[in-house]
């Protein structure tokens, strides 16, 4: 698929840039984006999502949003790719998807539902998982801990 544009992954960074999608350019843009962005990426509403340098360097992604959807039956976990190679490995690790756990109640969902990308991941782009929300384990308005490979990110707001 021919790719002629690369667009900054946030409403916070304007104007959107039209660039030839060379890897160096993408990396430079992502780096600039990471340095410049005033808030968590992925939306203009809601509390900021905390970040973990450790988790980001392990996975190559930055988690950007957890939201209850599907009339309460589903949960989306969105993440921005920082390092395409690591992120592809992270996404392909089907046996060990990140776990979402409610911080308010016992339980959570380990039932990761992988909407697998049938394509090359690109730095700066946002991708997602859809989780089942068994028994309404995760609720909008609370905080969850995302854990992966022994690392965790606490106090992630659920939209």
């Amino acid at each position: 698929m021919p790719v002629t544009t690369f667009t900054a992954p946030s409403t916070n960074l304007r104007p959107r840039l039209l660039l030839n999608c060379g890897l160096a350019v993408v990396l430079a843009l992502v780096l600039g984006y990471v340095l410049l962005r005033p808030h968590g990426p992925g939306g203009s509403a809601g509390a900021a999502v905390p970040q973990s340098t450790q988790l980001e360097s392990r996975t190559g992604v930055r988690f950007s949003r957890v939201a209850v959807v599907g009339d309460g039956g589903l949960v989306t976990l969105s993440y921005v790719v920082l390092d395409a190679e690591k992120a592809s490995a992270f996404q392909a690790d089907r046996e060990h998807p990140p776990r979402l756990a409610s911080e308010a109640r016992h339980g959570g969902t380990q039932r990761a539902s992988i909407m697998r990308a049938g394509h090359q991941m690109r730095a700066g782009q946002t991708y997602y998982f859809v989780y089942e929300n068994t028994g309404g384990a995760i609720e909008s308005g609370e905080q969850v801990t995302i854990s992966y490979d022994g690392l965790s990110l606490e106090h992630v707001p659920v939209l």
Partner: protein
Amino acid sequence: MRNLTHHLAQRRYAAALVAGTLALGSLTLGARAEAAPTSEGLECLTDAHNTFSLTARDGYVSTPDGNSIYMWGYGPSSGSFQLPGPVLCVTAGTHVRVILHNTLVEPTSIVFPGQSGVTADGKPAQPQLTDTGSMTSLTQSADATGGSVTYEFTAGSPGTYLYESGTDVAKQVQMGLYGALVVRPAGHPAQANDRSDSAFDPDHEYVFLLSEVDPDLHLGVERGDPVDVAHSTARYFMINGRSMPDTLAPNHASWLPNQPYGAMVHIKPYDAQTNPHPALIRYLNAGSVNYPFHPHGSDERVVTQDGSALAGSGGQDLSYLKYDLDVEPGQSLDALMDWRDVEQWDPATNPIPTQLPAIQDQLLVGPDTWFSESGYLGKKGSLPTNITANNECGEYYHVAHSHALQQATNYGATFGGMMTVFRIDPPAGCPTS
């Protein structure tokens, strides 16, 4: 949906299997309290005097891959930019007035395809020509940056219609100037058309307004560059201005402030006593190509097309069951949809009498699929690791999407785009925790 034949029911069930329902053991949930509400669906803009004030504005929408796209849209004048325009709901035969205010940098207008006798500022709405005879607009327009124009008409036959820009049409409609007009039958607001066999459950009414976006073109318009609409390439495909998985989010989701409408059908099985009426899905195509939209696991009964009830001259029922709803540009289809538990499968008393196919036989596309863990409605099972599991209480989720698979992507990333799910809860509903 009436007269569902056994054959169709079997096909439906087979399709449900293919869509990703499978029994791998079962886990019966204990009784719980409250059932969760089903989705809010269609949000109508109504007015006691059928007077609607819309403002054409610019703004940004977000796509699930993190992009932010410059758009134009019609929003309520009292509100702000949104995509798509509000769903205007009126009753057939009533007088409708739509006042358009224009904040855009070029003239714009609204045409109401399917409505007759439309006036603009009191004069017949008609194409606007230059002195040399070239057309500038399909109808009278509102001047750039502050102009306004008032359209009036008498609402025509019941059904679903687009309203959209009549000025520089290919460009302005691509930019987002479109919305849905719902005309209800007089005296029968819970029918799709004047026929009593088009009755639906008003709590389960949905608009699926399908469209596409070429982000390069939008960037060009934002910068004021000349754009070549004829050579645009769509990268984003939307239902009600959202792409998967944002289609699953509720109306007015906080993270989609300018895209207020979700697109998830949420129903319970048909039951003659407790749930006799089908859902109604109103499909509209505001794009430039055919969108072959199809839900997995369920046919739908098309009852109205472009505001015409499907009936013969003698009143005979010409509605039809369809698995793949080809919604062509500018077209609307109103489809009744229900889900019938014909076989009443039960893991203990009425098990599915066949070897369920291996996972590899059930691929949606690629090595993963969507999976509700059990072939039995209301029952949960165990989960293979490479499977997309979407199951709160044993409910079914059937994927529904454009079968043109490039339209089911977010800028080429699979899956996304023109895709959502149809959720079917057990008869008692889905208990909340």
